[in-house]
């Protein structure tokens, strides 16, 4: 356990599958989760496509890493944010996105879905509050 807890933000701006960014970002989040920091994962622009429901990659012969996002809660990632304007520009709503559950093993506190759709101003504010930003 490190003594100083920093606010880490992972910013995702790329669609999945077309490039390797989304998958690499997810790997870095999972690795970073081991360091007991205050982690948030932000999805803006084409990054919002990473969270769409019902991804089925069988016919394209690629690994479907969409189910891995649902495990983020188990890695003590408690904050997942989606930029509302990015969703709207793409004809999407929160109903199109997967849900990620979270549970505190010690207190048994549960949250059904930690994916939060937020206004762009809030995205900016959260970025400003971050100590470290990882960009993908």
């Amino acid at each position, binding site marked *: 356990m490190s003594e100083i807890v920093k606010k880490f933000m992972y910013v995702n701006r*790329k*669609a*999945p*599958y*077309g*490039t390797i960014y989304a998958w690499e970002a997810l790997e870095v989040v999972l690795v970073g989760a081991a360091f007991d920091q205050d982690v948030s994962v932000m999805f803006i*622009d*084409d990054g919002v*496509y990473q969270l*769409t*429901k*019902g*991804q*089925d*990659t*069988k*016919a*394209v012969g*690629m690994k*479907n890493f*969409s189910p891995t996002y649902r495990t983020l809660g188990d890695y003590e990632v408690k904050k997942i944010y989606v930029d509302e304007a990015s969703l709207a*520009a*793409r*004809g*999407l709503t929160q109903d*199109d996105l997967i849900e990620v559950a979270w549970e505190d093993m010690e207190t048994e506190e549960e949250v059904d879905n930690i994916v939060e759709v937020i206004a762009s101003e809030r995205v900016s504010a959260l970025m400003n509050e971050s100590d470290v930003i990882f960009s993908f």
Partner: protein
Amino acid sequence: MSILHTVNKSPFERNSLESCLKFATADAAVLLFEDGIYAALTGTSVEAQVTAALGKLKIHVLGPDLKARGFSEDRIIAGINVVDYAGFVDLTTANDTVQAWL
């Protein structure tokens, strides 16, 4: 000479689709695949641009790439034709050349 224009980049990240639709002529075919499929979806900020293009040329979208990204055929703009990999091959052979808007 008929041309098959392919677009494999997101219309929100690159200007590939925009350039493609600007230069493709009435006898051309356009195939959206990989991240290009996002242009085929309804309710987006590029829908009007795609709908306008459908008035002059044929637009196809690769089904497996739609499915991989979590979208079913009922989410695509009316008038866009869904093809499979065999259909992709048919499009390349039915046209004289291929212009890939990378």
